[in-house]
């Protein structure tokens, strides 16, 4: 009887998941029907006019940092809150987690690997408006450097190389710089975080310094995300 009961429970779970999937498929097929042309006027406008209005070739970046820049500010605030609360709740302590001991091969490889990571992250951040990538992705790649140092050596070495006070300062610079760059739009007489409307000189599309404020916003988001994720990781790995 108990085996029958267990089989029934397993079957119940499977039927539940399958029916939920079918329900979601029907609902989303009804809402996001791609053949329906009348609901897509906004994306048509982004695709056809986005390059002339903002000056960035990458349409995703032009949406994230120009049309919907306020949402990006909200996402950055979420990360700032998480890093602040984690570093407040786990103030000090040592790395006492169990882990396999690594040999010298891994540490030497990490030494070779870190400059490559720095170049890749800088490329992703600086070319955010010309190629896929942008501030968030480049910031995460930069945050891998302290994570690798923490894994292969100890937390003490990682915090000796990248001081916690400096990381907090970098995160604050990123958050405040984003808002100050947004206030430039108000000074010139248009909206907060306005780039295309305020006419900041889109420049020649396709060059490195073009698209007005978007490269600087990318740089600020990159600094902020990198420092914040490094703080979160080092706070998670320490214990009382």
């Amino acid at each position: 009887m108990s085996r029958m009961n267990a089989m029934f429970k397993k079957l119940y779970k499977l039927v539940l998941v399958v029916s939920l999937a079918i329900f979601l498929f029907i609902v989303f097929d009804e809402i996001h029907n791609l053949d329906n042309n009348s609901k897509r006027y906004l994306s048509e406008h982004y695709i056809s006019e986005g390059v002339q209005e903002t000056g960035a070739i990458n349409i995703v970046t032009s949406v994230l940092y120009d049309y919907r820049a306020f949402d990006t500010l909200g996402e950055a605030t979420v990360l700032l809150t998480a890093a602040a609360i984690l570093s407040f709740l786990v103030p000090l302590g040592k790395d006492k987690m169990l882990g396999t001991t690594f040999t010298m091969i891994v540490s030497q490889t990490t030494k070779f690997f870190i400059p490559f990571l720095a170049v890749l992250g800088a490329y992703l951040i600086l070319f955010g408006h010309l190629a896929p990538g942008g501030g968030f992705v480049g910031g995460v790649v930069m945050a891998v450097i302290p994570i690798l140092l923490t894994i292969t050596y100890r937390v003490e070495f990682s915090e000796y190389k990248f001081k916690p006070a400096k990381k907090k300062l970098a995160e604050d610079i990123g958050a405040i710089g984003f808002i100050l760059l947004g206030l430039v739009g108000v000074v010139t007489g248009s909206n907060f975080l306005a780039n295309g409307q305020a006419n900041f000189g889109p420049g020649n599309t396709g060059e490195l310094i073009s698209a007005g404020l978007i490269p600087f916003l990318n740089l600020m988001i990159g600094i902020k995300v990198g420092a914040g994720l490094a703080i979160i990781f080092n706070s998670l790995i320490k214990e009382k």
Partner: protein
Amino acid sequence: MVYFILAIVLFAILTFYRVMKGPSVPDRVAAMNAIGVMFLLVLVLLSLYFDRKVFLDVALVYGVFLFVNVLIMAKYFTKPEKGEVGD
């Protein structure tokens, strides 16, 4: 060209058997590493097939994070599961 991509995806599905079956954690991590490298090759071949060099950045970033994944799994999966120590 498309047939090569199809074949590599098939090999990745074959290797996923070891992730499902494998008796211990290191088996599964090694199979995960193999599947990741195969999908990296698929990404490079797709970027040549569509003739857009932008897609090579995706392959590069994915390779970096595959290495970080394997490193951190090997560092912090240390407690053996009960009753599953063997070959």
